[in-house]
């Protein structure tokens, strides 16, 4: 029965295009529609989207490398934000940095915070993988076989990490007053500088990851491990080590994402959960397991969400990401870039 319902790739694209046109028409008809609002919607959408994209990148990376979906990834995002904030509070009172760099004071501290979040979350991710997830694979077969156990463990880990963060930092939302400078004017639009930081840093991290995966030897090894653990073993790759590295990199990227949103919003213990869900939607929209797709999916979800809450209804802001995910799953289940390379028989 379902065979008859298949519509083919062209049909998928036509139906999806119709949906997109309908949606654009709806937005254009809105009374708020003008070029100014469109500009700000696009900027906010892109800056929020890159955050979803970064977390989705980590989820996709872990999915390709370990064959499991990491449901505690939002918590690495949250703890990354706290790690950045802690570093910020440590450096914020130091006069000597101000004396050395009076002009670029805020920037340098912020870059140090980003770096701290990156490194500490990377190490923390490796620790979590080694201590909590690796023992589940003891029975043999690696992550592929232990998949369901790891997914459940991910949910549990999420609760545990939230509560540990609750004990350490208590549930009050904390400001992250990074001094990055005055708002910038781009195309007649005054933007808080943090938005530009989000987009620039996020894209550089994604580009760095692309370079790392495609141009370095370790990246080659990671791609090999992602495709097949057995064959990677046979060419002499230390597969357990590489699995830790993959997990660590994914968590480090989530940590950077957390520190990036800190100055724009606030840092709070419960920020990871909704980000995880939206990043999951972004990964599905882009094509699950596809890394460029994760970033594109993040942008799509971010712009769709911002535009919808601006032009359609602001009171259901968190609904749109999942609406988009459902529509994509119905019409184009592989997502935008979910193409598998098939072997010739």
């Amino acid at each position: 029965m379902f065979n008859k319902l298949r519509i083919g790739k062209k049909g998928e694209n036509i139906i999806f295009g119709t949906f997109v046109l309908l949606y654009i028409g709806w937005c254009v008809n809105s009374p708020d529609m003008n070029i100014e609002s469109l500009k700000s919607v696009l900027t906010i959408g892109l800056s929020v989207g890159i955050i979803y994209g970064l977390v989705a990148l980590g989820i996709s990376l872990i999915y390709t490398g370990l064959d499991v979906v990491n449901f505690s990834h939002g918590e690495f995002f949250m703890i990354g934000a706290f790690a950045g904030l802690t570093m910020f509070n440590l450096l914020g009172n130091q006069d000597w940095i101000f004396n050395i760099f009076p002009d670029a004071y805020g920037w340098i501290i912020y870059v140090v915070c980003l770096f701290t979040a990156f490194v500490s979350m990377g190490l923390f991710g490796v620790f979590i993988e080694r201590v909590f997830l690796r023992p589940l694979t003891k029975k043999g077969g690696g992550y592929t076989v232990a998949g369901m156990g790891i997914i459940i463990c991910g949910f549990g880990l999420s609760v545990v990490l939230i509560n540990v963060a609750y004990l350490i930092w208590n549930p009050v939302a904390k400001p992250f007053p990074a001094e990055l400078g005055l708002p910038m004017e781009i195309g007649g639009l005054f933007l808080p500088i943090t938005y530009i930081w989000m987009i620039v840093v996020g894209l550089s991290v994604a580009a760095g990851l692309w370079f790392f995966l495609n141009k370095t030897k370790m990246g080659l090894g990671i791609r090999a491990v992602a495709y097949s653990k057995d064959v990677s073993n046979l060419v002499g790759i230390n597969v357990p080590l590489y699995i830790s590295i993959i997990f660590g990199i994914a968590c480090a990227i989530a940590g950077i994402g957390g520190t990036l949103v800190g100055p724009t919003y606030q840092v709070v213990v419960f920020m990871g959960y909704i980000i995880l869900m939206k990043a999951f939607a972004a990964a599905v929209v882009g094509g699950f397991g596809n890394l460029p797709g994760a970033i594109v999916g993040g942008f799509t979800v971010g712009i769709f969400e911002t535009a919808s809450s601006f032009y359609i209804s602001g009171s259901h802001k968190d609904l749109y990401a999942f609406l988009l995910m459902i529509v994509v799953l119905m019409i184009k289940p592989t997502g935008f870039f979910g193409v598998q390379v098939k072997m010739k028989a």
Partner: protein
Amino acid sequence: MVNQKKKIGGYLLKINQLISGYGSVQILNGANMKVEKQSIVALLGGNGTGKSTILRAASGLIRSWQGTIEFNGEQIQNLPAHEIVGRGLVQVTQGKDVFPAMSVTENLKLGGFILKSKQQLSDNLEKVYNYFPRLNERKDQLAATLSGGELQMLCIGRGLMSNPKMIMLDEPSAALAPQIVLDIFKNINRIRQDGLTVLVVEQNVRMALLLADYGYVIKDGVINVEGDSKKLMYDESVKESYLGGTKANV
């Protein structure tokens, strides 16, 4: 050939009373094997007799439960797989085990993953292209677009990239046209003449025995018959238990 015989100095790989299997299923029930330096040894047997299991145990993909595997005078049965590759023992899997979304060159570079210097990597790349000129013609194509014979060449070439002392081939002739099988077997002979030791697991008994110096026939997880390949080819028990037997039953 005469030249080769002089150089032979003892055994490179010794498998002693090896017991292993998957999960709780025991496949090998005490297999004994020895592979001389710079020889080609064929390991023959029907489906499900444990040929590939011996290779997987030797290359560290599965644990050996009992018994020893000695390579180059060193016990390797409990080392992780990547360290066994580092010691010069490389398993070449069947042709479908390449990385399909990577180019031929990238696949080969992965084979030399344990090499430290780039110079050595490019030297070995040249060497492999010299063995298999077809791969050179297709070096920028994705591995997924190669034909069956080219995939097998790619797998063997990938195994040669890490400067191994010995390679173990898992059914290099599986599902290939006879002409290509001949080509690949000629290249295996060339590889041996360049100083490597080769262990071939095969179902194509006649071809394998033509190629090899020595043969082992495995049945139910133990080595049943062994001997010089010329002798094995006319051995009645081999024909009965392996060649004739399966044919008659099928």
